[in-house]
């Protein structure tokens, strides 16, 4: 790690002020992504602003009937919280599919949203990478790209967003509450992460002076019909090759509201409005699920080593929707997929 100095913020206003005063400072919460990247010299902040003691640790019901999750709620606390287990089990399941028990104890809600790609070239400062150094070139396009994107990639970057939790938050239509020099604002989850385009250095739409305060869930939690299925090279403690969050509302044998979000396939949790529309009003079953998968993957493009992701995603979508429709969600400790 490079030398840096360390300050601790006592309240949100102080944290925002400290950040504005030092352009090369970074917030640190759980540290599980930032410290790792600093050890590889990918991140080299001159100052760390410790926000881990800010009072952003509540999980509470909102007046609108949803739930507000403080930015510093640890991933494990959130996954096992009674409100989340009972009303948003899709979110609990996605969190428990990610990282390890130790990491989930350390990782914060806000930090999870801002974790950076696991593209090996992004981590290796000896290789060109547009995300690390804009304009340097992308080593993955002509390199090892088995883990890379099949949707929404650009000529400049084919990296994927690594979070599991964010895939569920995308499916649940969460909102990210932030504050900064220009005051508070709420960012719909779909607008929080961005596609790489010609600015792959920007992962999201949070401004440099802003801090995440909370993630807010709307009332509808799809507790009866949901599933999170994560496919990876090991059975646990590995990032997704493809993951699917499915949430359905079933209404007298027909699908009402439908949500489908994919992880491991794009620079952000991937949703497709047309695919979800194609599910609404249909009888749940292989035919409707296959049609939705085909719509979602219509524009999929693979690179040299990740062609397998396209059929894998299709099958994963059908299987996850089937699990959701039958009310038998994937249990993360059980490794057989039913």
């Amino acid at each position, binding site marked *: 790690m*490079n030398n*840096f100095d360390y300050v601790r913020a006592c309240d949100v206003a102080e944290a925002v002020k400290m950040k504005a005063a030092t352009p090369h400072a970074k917030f640190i919460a759980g540290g*599980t992504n930032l410290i790792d990247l600093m050890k590889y010299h990918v991140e080299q902040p001159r100052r760390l602003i410790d926000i881990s003691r800010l009072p952003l640790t509540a999980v509470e019901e909102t007046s609108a009937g949803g739930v507000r999750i403080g930015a510093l709620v640890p991933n494990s606390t959130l996954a096992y919280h009674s409100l989340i287990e009972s009303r948003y089990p899709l979110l609990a399941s996605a969190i428990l599919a990610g990282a*390890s028990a*130790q990491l989930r104890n350390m990782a914060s809600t806000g930090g999870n949203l801002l974790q950076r790609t696991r593209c090996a070239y992004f981590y290796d400062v000896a290789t060109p990478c547009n995300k690390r150094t*804009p304009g340097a070139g992308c080593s993955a396009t002509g390199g090892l790209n088995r883990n890379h994107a099949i949707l929404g990639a650009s000529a400049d970057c084919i990296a994927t967003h690594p979070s599991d939790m964010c895939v569920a938050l995308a499916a649940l239509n969460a909102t990210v509450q932030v504050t900064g020099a220009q005051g508070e604002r709420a960012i719909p989850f779909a607008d929080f992460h961005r596609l790489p385009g010609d600015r792959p250095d920007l992962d999201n739409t949070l401004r440099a002076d802003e801090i995440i305060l909370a993630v807010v869930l709307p009332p509808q939690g799809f507790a009866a019909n949901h599933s999170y299925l994560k496919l990876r090279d090991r059975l646990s403690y590995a990032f997704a090759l493809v993951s699917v969050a499915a949430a359905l509302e079933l209404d007298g044998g027909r699908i009402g509201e439908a949500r489908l979000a994919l992880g491991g396939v794009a620079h952000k949790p991937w949703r497709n409005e047309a695919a979800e529309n194609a599910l609404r009003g249909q009888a749940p079953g292989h035919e409707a699920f296959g049609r939705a998968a085909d719509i979602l993957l219509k524009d999929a493009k693979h690179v040299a080593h990740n062609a397998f992701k396209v059929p894998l995603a299709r099958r994963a979508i059908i299987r996850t929707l089937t699990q959701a429709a039958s009310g038998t969600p994937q249990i993360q*400790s059980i490794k057989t997929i039913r």
Partner: protein
Amino acid sequence: MSPSRESAAPLTKPAPLSVTLRINGESRTLSVAPWTTLLDLLRNHLDLTGTKKGCDHGQCGACTVLIDGRRALSCLTLAVMKDGAEITTIEGLAKGDELHPLQQAFIDHDAFQCGYCTPGQICSAAGLIAEGKAKTREEIRELMSGNICRCGAYPNIVGAIEQAMGGGR
């Protein structure tokens, strides 16, 4: 000129910071650089070498300790951020000459070969038992997946944890 790399300019050496930790029941005050990890503090500053450095990147679990009773990775923890915390390492589990039930269970089940991952496995298992979420072997395996064993002692590790939980033999 990415936001993460433009800050590469060298920095004058920041003054060391004072940090007080309660380690295995004993209060210790040390002066450390801000970039000192809890793992390096334990091993290099306090000679508590029971906690192991495997990957130093959060990928193996060898450095697992309990921070305020919760299992965490000391290699990704900055010591200064834990000022005031209670740290339990493998050295703090036994009561004098009496082994912690997990230590005894690991011996009974032959749950290690080279032993390098063992302190992390045992601290992680102590955290797992305190959390109370694992009931079945499958759940133990899943919730212990953050601890890699290169010797592949996994079946016996699960057996040892089952014994310590009071479930298995």
